[in-house]
C-alpha cells in the first residue's frame, strides 16, 4: 500500500530564509508525485508535480522539488521564503492510472515578517 511521510508538522521561518520540506513515500512501482498547498481560508491547489524525466521540477511561486528515487524522497524547496508562503503543504503520491492519490499529514509553514 502507498504511504507518504512528511517529517515536520510545523515549521517557522523568517522572511528570506531558505525552505526545505521533507517527503518520503512508500510504493513499489512507478509513481507520480505532487505537492499541494492550502493557503489560509483557501482550498487546496497544485504547487508542482513529477511524472517522469528531469527529477528536478519547478512549480509556481519559485518552488521546486527534487525526486530522488533511491531515497524514495520528493523534498520541496524554496531559496527565499516570503510572508505570503504561510500555508499548509501536502506531499502526495499516486501509482498512476486507477490508483488513488495518497497524501501526507501536511506541514504547516509560518513565515514571520
Amino acid at each position, binding site marked *: 500500500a502507498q504511504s507518504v511521510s512528511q517529517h515536520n508538522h510545523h515549521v517557522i521561518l523568517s522572511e528570506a530564509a531558505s525552505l526545505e520540506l521533507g517527503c518520503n513515500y512508500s510504493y513499489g512501482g512507478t509513481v507520480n508525485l505532487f505537492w499541494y498547498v492550502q493557503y489560509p481560508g483557501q*482550498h487546496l491547489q497544485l504547487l508542482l508535480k513529477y511524472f517522469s524525466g528531469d527529477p528536478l521540477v519547478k512549480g509556481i511561486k519559485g518552488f521546486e522539488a527534487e525526486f530522488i528515487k533511491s531515497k524514495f524522497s520528493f523534498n520541496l524547496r524554496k531559496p527565499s521564503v516570503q510572508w505570503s508562503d504561510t500555508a499548509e503543504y501536502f506531499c502526495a503520491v499516486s501509482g498512476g492510472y486507477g490508483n*488513488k492519490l495518497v*497524501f501526507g499529514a501536511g506541514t504547516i509553514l509560518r513565515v514571520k515578517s
Partner: protein
Amino acid sequence: GAGVSQSPSNKVTEKGKDVELRCDPISGHTALYWYRQSLGQGLEFLIYFQGNSAPDKSGLPSDRFSAERTGGSVSTLTIQRTQQEDSAVYLCASSQDGYNSPLHFGNGTRLTVT
C-alpha cells in the same frame, strides 16, 4: 470557469443521525475523489470514482459510509448513524482523467457531530 462545488459548507448534526454531503465536480472531469481532513491527520482518502464506478473504496472507514456518483457527474457521500469521531472537513476533488491531471478541490463540508 466554475470549480468544484460542495454543499452544504457547514453541517451540524446530532449523534445517530444520517447526513448526505454533495459534490458537483468540474464539468467533463471523469475522476472524482472524496477525502476527509481532520486536525493533524492530513487528508485521509475515502473513495475514488472513475466515471460512475468506484475502483477504489478502500478508504471508507466503516459500513456506515457510502458514496455514489450518477451520470458521471454529481456525487453524494452518505454517513449513517453519525458518531462524534466523524466530525471533520470532507473534501471533494475532481480531475480530468484521474491519471496525469491535477486534482481540483472544493472548499469542503465541515461536519460537526454533537
